[in-house]
C-alpha cells in the first residue's frame, strides 16, 4: 500500500495534512499516534471509505479512487466503531458478506464455519450482532476482513476490548497471514503491542507523519514508547499528577 500526500480538512481543522507512507509488501506495519492524531482518517482515505481532499492511495499499484472495485477486492478492512448488519447472527453476517464478495455459497459456508470456530464466536450461534459485546464485535469485524482472502489487511485498533486469550489467537492469525506473504497495517495506541508484532512503524502526530520506517530505525536505542513521547512532544507526561490523590 502506498499513500501519497493525503490531506483532509474538516471545517477549520486539518485532520490529515500531506500524509505519505509506503507499506512494503509482506510487512507488518504499525501506525501509532495519540487520540485524534488522524490515524483513522488517514486509514479511511487509504482504503476508500473517506474521499481525500488531495493526494492518492494505491493498493498493490491500483489506485483506490480510480479503480475502486479492483482495489477493494484486494484489501480486508476492520474499521473502528462502525455498525454491522445488526440483525444478523455472526454466521449470517459472514454468509451475506461472502456472497457480496462474489464467493460461492459452498466456499462461504466453509470459511464462515472456520472463522467462527477459530475466533470462538460459534458458541453464540443464535446471538444477533446487536447483542454482541465490544470484544465480540471486534472479532466478527476481523472475520469479515479475512473472509475473502485479501492480500492486505487494514485494521483500526483491532485489539481494543479483546480479551487476552482471544488477542493471542488473533496475533497468531495475523503473524501467519504475514508469513504467508500478506501485508498488514494496524493502528494502535499500545506501543508494546506494536513493538511485539510489527516490523515497520509510522508515527502520526497532529495529522502529519512524525517518523516512519523499519521499527529498529524509528525506535533507535530506547523503547518505542520513549521515542513516541519524544516525537509527539507533550514532554513531561509522567510528571503530571492529580492534586487530590
Amino acid at each position, binding site marked *: 500500500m502506498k499513500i501519497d500526500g493525503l490531506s483532509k480538512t474538516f471545517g477549520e481543522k486539518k485532520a490529515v495534512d500531506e500524509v505519505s507512507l509506503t507499506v512494503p509488501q509482506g510487512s507488518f506495519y504499525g501506525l501509532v499516534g495519540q487520540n485524534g492524531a488522524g490515524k483513522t482518517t488517514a486509514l479511511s482515505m487509504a482504503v*476508500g471509505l473517506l474521499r481525500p481532499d488531495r493526494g492518492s492511495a494505491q493498493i498493490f499499484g491500483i489506485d483506490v479512487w480510480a479503480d475502486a472495485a479492483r482495489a*477493494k477486492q484486494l484489501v480486508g478492512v476492520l474499521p473502528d466503531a462502525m455498525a454491522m448488519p445488526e440483525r444478523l447472527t455472526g454466521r*449470517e453476517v459472514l*454468509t451475506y*458478506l461472502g456472497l457480496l464478495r462474489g464467493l460461492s455459497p459452498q466456499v462461504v459456508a466453509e470459511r464462515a464455519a472456520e472463522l467462527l470456530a477459530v475466533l470462538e464466536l460459534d458458541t453464540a450461534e*443464535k446471538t444477533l*450482532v446487536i447483542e454482541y459485546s465490544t470484544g465480540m464485535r471486534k472479532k466478527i469485524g476481523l472475520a469479515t476482513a479475512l473472509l475473502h482472502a485479501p492480500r492486505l489487511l487494514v485494521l483500526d485498533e483491532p485489539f481494543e476490548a479483546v480479551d487476552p486469550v482471544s488477542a493471542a489467537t488473533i496475533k497468531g492469525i495475523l503473524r501467519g497471514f504475514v508469513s504467508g506473504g500478506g501485508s498488514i497495517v494496524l493502528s494502535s495506541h499500545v506501543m508494546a503491542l506494536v513493538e511485539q508484532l510489527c516490523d515497520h512503524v509510522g508515527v502520526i502526530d497532529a495529522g502529519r507523519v512524525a517518523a516512519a520506517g523499519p521499527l529498529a530505525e524509528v525506535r533507535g536505542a530506547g523503547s518505542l514508547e520513549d521515542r513516541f513521547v519524544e516525537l509527539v512532544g507533550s514532554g513531561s507526561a509522567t510528571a503530571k499528577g492529580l492534586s487530590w490523590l
Partner: protein
Amino acid sequence: MAVAVTMARMKIAVLRHSLTGQHGGMVIAGGSLGAVLATGTIFLAFLDGDWLTAAYAVWMLGWIIGPVFSGGGDESLRPEFFAMLGLPAHRLAVGLLASAFVGVAPAVSLLALSGLVVAGARQGVLGALVAVPAMVLQLAAFVLLSRVAVAVLGMALRSRVGAVGAAVVNGAILAFLGQGWVFAVALGQGSGIPEFVRYLPSGWGLLAVRGDYLALVALAVLVGLLLAAWAALLARRAGTTRPSTRGRRPMRARSAQDAVMAKELRAWTRDLVRTHQLTFALAYGLFFASAPLVLGWPGMLPWAGPIFIVMAAAMTANQYGDEGTALWLTVMTPGVSDVRGRQLAWLVAVAPVALVVTVALTAVNGGPWPIICAVTLALLGGGAGLVPLMSVYGLVPGIDPARRGGNPLRTSEDDGSLTGLAYLMLVLVAATAAPAAVVAWMFGWLGVPVGALTGALCYWGLGLLAGRRLTAQGPELLHMMRTGRRPETKSTFQALDMPKGAQTVTYLCWGLAMIPLFPQGIVASVFLVNGMYEHSWFLATYMAPGLRWPTAVGMIVIGLALLGTGWGLMRRYRQKEVTA
C-alpha cells in the same frame, strides 16, 4: 432539590448551544409557530362555551402524540446519563422533570395555558388566583403525560406484541386526527363540542378555575401518580434489550443480490422498529379508510391498501440512515447492487399485505376495481423505487442501532428532518400514481396496464438512480453518517440544504397542503360542478347548498397558502445562499 436544579441548568446549557447555528433556525421557527398557536388559544378564553376546553384537549393530544410520532421527543438529558450516580428513581424523575420544563415547547404551552388566567379573571378575583396553580399543574400534567407515553411505548417496543400494539394505537390516533372532520360532522354537523371533552384531564384546570376546586386536587393527584409511574418506568428503562434466543433459519441465498434481500428480510422480521413502522402504516391505512363508515359511507374502504403503501414508504424512507454506519460494508463492496436487493425485500414486506387488504376491501365495497388496481400497482412500484432513492438523496444520519439509548423509537438525532422526509415521501409516492389514476378515471381498465407500466418504470429507473448515487457518493454518505453532519460539498438536492428549522416548516406546509388542496378542494369542486352532492369523503358535500362552494374554494385557498408559505421559505434561503 439540588439534583433538579442541576439538571435544569444542564438543560439550559444544552438549549443555549442549540440556539446557535443551523439548529437555532428550527428552534426559533418552531417557537414562533407555537407562540402564534398559543396566542390563538388565549383568544379562545374570551369566548363562551367549550372552545378553550377543546383547544387544551388538542394541546394535550399534541404533547402525547408529537414525541411518539417524531421519535421520542426531547432527549437531550437521558436517564442513562445518570445511571452511575446511584440516584433513587424518584429523585431522578423529579430532576428530569425539572429539566423537561426547560425548553421551547413547555414555554409555549405555558403561554397557551395562561388562557386559564383570562378565563379565571372573567369569573372574578378568586378565579384568577386559582388559575395560577392550575396553570402550573396543567403544564406538569402535559409534560408528564408526554414522558409516560414515550416511556410506555419504549417499553412496549421491546417485545413484538408490544411493538404491534403500540403501532396499532398510534395508527388509529393519527388516522382519526386526519379524519377529524368526519367525527365533527357525525357529532352534530360540526357545531357542538362533545361534553366529555370537558372532563378530560386537559380540562381539569379550566374546571377548577370555573369554581370546581375538586378538579384542582384531582390534577395534583394526577401529577403525583404520573410522576410515580414515570419514576418506575425510568428504573426499568436502564436495562437494554434482552438477548434473543429464538431459532434461526439458515441463510440460503446463493447470489449477492439474494444475500442483500435475505439480510433485509431478516431486518424486517427481527427489528422491532421496522415491525412498528409497517404495522403503523397498516393501522393508519385501515383506520383512515374506515373512518367515514361513521357517516355511513363505505366508499373509502378500497383505499386502505393504497394508503398503507404510501404510509409504509414514508415510514421506511430513511432506510440507509436508520442503519447508521453499516453503510461502510456497501462502500467496501462496489459493484454489488445493494439497492435492488433492498427494493425486492421492500416489495416482499409490503406488497402481499397491501394486495390482500386492497382486494378484500374493494370486494366489500363492490369496486371501483379499475382505479384501485391501477393505483395499487403504480404505488407499489413507486414506493419501491422512491424508498432507496430518497434514502440516499435525502439521507438523515441515524444513530448506530447498537448505540441507541433505552428509547428504541429514537433512530436519529434529527427528528425534524426525519419528519420532513416522511412528509415529502407521502407526496412523492402519491404522485407516482397520478398518471395511472387519471387514465383509470377516464378510461377504466386501461389504467391498470398504465399503473403496472409506471410502477415498473419507477422501480427500475429510480432504483437505478439510487444505485448510481450510492456508488458515486458512498464515501460522502458514510462520512455524513459518522459525523451526523452533511459534507461541505454541495448537495444536488437543494431543498435539503436549508437550515433544519426552515426545512421542517417547509415540509410541514407541503405535507399539510395536500389534503385541503387536492381532495377537499379540487376534487370536491369537480364533484360540485358535476352536481354530485352525495355525501362522500369531501367536506363540501356535507355542507348546506350555499356553503358548498365556499367550503371547496376555502380548502383550495388553505392548500395554496400552505404551498406558498413552503415555497416562499425555500426561495428565501436559496437567495440567501446566492448572496452569502
